[in-house]
Each structure stands twice: as C-alpha cells, then as structure tokens.
C-alpha cells in the first residue's frame, strides 16, 4: 500500500446521509475474483439512469468533479454490507479520502486498510464544506487536520494505529504476522483450559 501523508485536492459533494455500500458499489459488481476495475461500478445506479445514460446532475458526473480525490458526504457513510469492494471502488476511481461527520464501523476499517482516509469532522466543518461544493481542501494525515475553504482548520481523529497504517503504508497484516509465536502460545493455553 502506498503511504499517504497529505492530500491537496478539490472535493466532490455527495449531500446524502447514510450512504450504504449497496449504493457505493451495487452487488452485481461483486462477481469478480480480483479487486481491480471496480471504479467502473462506483455509485453505478446513481451515476446512470435505467437506460445506462450518465445523469448530468449527479455530482460525480459534473466536469468539475474530474480529478477530485476527496469525497464529502453526509453522516454514517458506508453503512450496510461489509464489502471491501466499496473501499476498492472508491480508490480505483481515484479517491484518497472521504470527509463525513461519521462513518459506519466496518467501512472505516476497510477504508484505512486500503489507503482511503476516513476524515471525521464536526458539524461546523462539514457545513463549511457543504456550503462550498467543489472547494479545494488540504488534508494533513500526520497532523489530523483539514484546511477548509473558509480559511479555518478542522481537526479529525484517527486512532494511532490507523494513522500509522496510512502514513507508512504498512498494514495490520505485518503486525499480526510478527506475533505468530504469541498466537501459538495462546492456542496452547486455550486448548489446555477448554
């Protein structure tokens, strides 16, 4: 995973709460056996109408969304299914961060493990972003700050381990693998007590 310490980018505003993973990547895109190419299915049923035509009014389809790497969305982003495909699809479509006032538990973990920064800000900071759709932001992952379009700076928290994973590109896998002996001892202990 590529380390990610800072992002400077325009934002795309998706002004909806409780965006579920079935919208982020509909189930019919889950039939593959690799993690590639899922960007094509990102928000598929919101991006296109039933005849398959692009909906011009959908924020991700507007010309100014081109190249934006930060998505701004409403509360409880990523609720629903555990499909990591949601994080893969966002990454594949070029997103490096999602800013919201809250994230669903499973999605947040999936995001971090794929170099997608879950930026949880307070309502005031969120309002500053929704009032300025498309505005550029500067996200400092190491410091946990976002520079807002109104000139203010918002803080966001990441647990120290998530921050380390994002900024070093080293994941939990390495951490777990470095504890295999301790895991074996736990197994022996558990076997002797049950």
């Amino acid at each position: 995973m590529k380390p990610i310490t800072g992002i400077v980018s325009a934002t795309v505003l998706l002004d909806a709460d409780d965006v579920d993973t079935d919208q982020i990547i509909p189930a019919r895109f889950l039939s593959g056996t690799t993690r590639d190419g899922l960007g094509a299915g990102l928000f598929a049923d919101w991006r296109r109408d039933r005849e398959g035509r692009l909906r011009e009014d959908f924020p991700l389809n507007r010309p100014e969304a081109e190249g934006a790497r930060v998505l701004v969305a409403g509360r409880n982003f990523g609720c629903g299914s555990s499909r990591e495909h949601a994080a893969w699809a966002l990454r594949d479509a070029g997103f490096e961060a999602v800013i919201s006032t809250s994230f669903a538990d499973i999605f947040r973990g999936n995001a971090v493990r794929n170099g997608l920064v879950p930026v949880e800000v307070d309502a005031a900071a969120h309002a500053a972003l929704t009032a300025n759709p498309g505005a550029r932001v500067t996200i400092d992952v190491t410091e946990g700050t976002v520079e807002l379009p109104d000139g203010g700076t918002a803080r966001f928290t990441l647990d120290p381990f998530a921050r380390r994973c994002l900024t070093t590109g080293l994941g939990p896998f390495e951490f777990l693998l470095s504890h295999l002996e301790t895991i074996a001892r736990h197994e022996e202990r558990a076997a002797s007590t049950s």
Partner: protein
Amino acid sequence: MTTRPSPRTLFDRIWESHVVVPEGDDHPAIIYVDVHLIHEVTSPQAFALLRERGLPVRRPDQTWATADHSVPTRFEKGRPAFIDQAARNQVAALERNCRDFGIPLFGLGASGQGIVHVIGPERGLTQPGRTIVCGDSHTSTHGAFGAWAFGIGTSEVAQVLATQCLLQARPRTLGLEIRGDLAPGVSAKDIILAVIRRFGVAFGRGSVIEYHGSAVRSLGMEARMTLCNMSIEAGARAGLISPDDTTFDWIEGREEAPRGKAFDESVARWRALATDDDATFDRTASFDAGTVEPMVTWGTNPSMSCGILEPIPTPCSPGERAALGYMGLEAERPLAGTPVDVVFIGSCTNARISDLRAAAGVVRGRRVHPDVQVLVVPGSAAVRDQARHEGLDRTFREAGAVWREPGCSMCIAMNGDRLQPGQLAVSTSNRNFEGRQGPGGRTVLASPVTAAAAALAGQVADPRPYLEGGTP
C-alpha cells in the same frame, strides 16, 4: 477474606478470554478467532493475498466454507443455472481455494450447503463464548447463542486465514432491554424493525448490543437469530444474547456440538458466561415490545418503517423525502393496500424452518394472488429437507408460490433472482436500500407472516386476519 469477583457482562468475558495481545498505546488488541466462515464473494481476493505472500491457512480446522451469495436457486436439466460465467467462476474459485488450502466446503448441491449464517448454527459451530467472524456483515446473527460474532472486510479475511487473529479496538457495550409480551402476529422481525425505527440506523455504532429482558428470554433460538441478525442495521457490528436453557437445548445433538459428558461440562461453562445481574453496560436503553404491531418499511433504509395499519409518517428530512419518492409512496396513508409485484420469503434473517412454518401457516389451503410472483427460498439444504419432510414445499407450491433451492437469492440479487425496475417486493430479508433486490426495485421489509399475507392479498396486508385459519 474472599472478594467477590466484580460483575461482568457476557461480552467482557468473551473479550478477556480471546485477547492474545492486549491493546497498546499505538495498536489495538490482537483477538483470537475460534470460528472463521467464508463464502465465495468476499474470499477470492483474500486467498490471492495468501498466495502472493506464500502463506498457508493457519487453522483450516477452524475454517468452514459455503457457496451462497451467487449460487443459482434453480436447476436446468439437472445443472445449476448460473446467471453468468463470472458467478460460475466465483464458485469454482472457492472450490479450488478450499481444496488447495484444506478447508472443508459445503458447496453447491452438498447436503450441508446454505446461507453461511444459517449453516453455522445448524452444524453446531455457533457456540456460546466463541468468537466467530465472516466476510459478511450479518455475521451478527450468531450472537443469538452468546458468541461474539461480527462481519469483516476481505483484507481481514486474509489476516484471519493466515494468523487466526484480528486487530480489534474494544467495542463499547450497549445493553438493550426488551420487555413486554408480543401480540399475536408479531415476531422478532417486527421487534427489530421497531427497535431500529425507534433508535435509528447508527444507534449501535462502535458497540456490541446485548439484548436482554423478558421479551428476549421468551423468544426461541431462531427468533433470537432474527433479532441479532439485524443488529448491523442498527449500526452495531455485533448483537449478543446471554445463553440459557433455550440455547443449550438447541445446540444439543448437532454435528459439531460436544456430546455426552463433554456437553454437560460445556453447558456448565456456557451458563457461567451470562451477563451478571449487577453488571453494567457502557450504555443502556429500554424498549417495550408489548405495543409493537406487524411492521413494514416504507423507505430506503431499515429505520424508515411503521406499523402495518399506521399512516406513513410525514417525511421530515430531505433523505426521507427522497426515500418516499424512490418508493413511489405517499405519506399520511397506511402502506396496507399498496399493490405488490413480488413476495420474497428467504435470507439469513427469515428463512429458517420456523419462518417457513409461519409463512406456510398463512398460505395453507389458499391461493396466492394471480398478479404476484412469490419466491420461497429455504436458508439451507437442511431447512429445505426438513420443509419437504413436513410438506411445506407442497403447501407453498399448491398455493402458487415458487419453491427454490437454498441461497441468498433475491436478498442480494447477485444470482439472477431479482426485481425488475419499478417492481415492489415484500421481502423477509434485511435491507431495503435502493436497488438492493435489483436495480430500480423497491423493497418493503416485513416478517414471514406479513410477506405471506401480501402474497395472498396482492397488496401489502395485515397478516393477523389470516392467522389460525381466520378469513380476512
């Protein structure tokens, strides 16, 4: 002097016995996984990761696989009617991965096959005090037995395959007391929909919900599974119920359950896991199930629901207005009476034998409405076989419903069983998100008896007049 150990919750006990490395300043705890369940959709990329790194599966003896999400529920000329090559490849990849890594597989056509959250308990793998994970958010179902069970992403599936462990920040505990006596025609599905309506879809975020109280105790195991299943729809990764005699009786005699003296010893151990009366939760809430009516959803998330005879509430947010618009429904009128195109009786929420019995009880001796397509999909091969044994498949068929082979089917609409754009379904599944049951499809979530009533009436209908041989 002896000091009494401090009161603890079931969750505290499971957590403590599964910590391999405690939480540190800069890392979450390492937690041991007792049972790892895998399926075809969220595992192929995990196996690819193992292959890339040349890693073995650490405990194939603690890993079980089934094919459920993309499998067809129909056969043509004796062969499974896959929707496309991708679905066939996905199931083939699971078979190959299980063979290469030595993992037992309950594959398509096998007697142990079924929806992953139906077969875990059925085999007796789901036992009190265990940690159970699966690359699937409805893993919360297994919490009904007092197991800490939760859904994980595919990267985590790879981690568990390789190390049998996961990194976990300790979740908070949320004690939800559910009291009151259920009215006739009201089931666990109605309770959990009413709970989610009352407390919202983010209520359980960061928490494990332990359901307790008189109404919970009175539920059978399958109803308890329905309750815990939809914890994720309340925002919690896991739901729990302290084990009791109902739990132990259900487990006894199952394939993977301990036998004889070992079973008695296990029961003693399991009993001691239950939350102490004076234990405290990080948060608490209380809910009266006595006033719950049969529930139906009118919107596009599971909190947007109301009683079957109650008018749909006036939307009070842009999201609710959009949901009502998507559903093509009008506020301030009851949902009952809305024409229905499809009825789906299935899924890990409501496709166990008791669910099928309840639905069959409504349709027995009657005909489904000619304008409604009714699909009944048993949760597992074992449920299918038991239903056949009881003649339930015949009851459904004679009523004009379509009886299928086990799988997730129209709950997730990956296998070809799906709604056409604009169609409205009454479904016993768990998610009414836009397009969940097929692009442009509209889902009304309900209990098995409410779904069965809709099948007969051709419209959303109150199930109560149909119960116990009544004539509506």
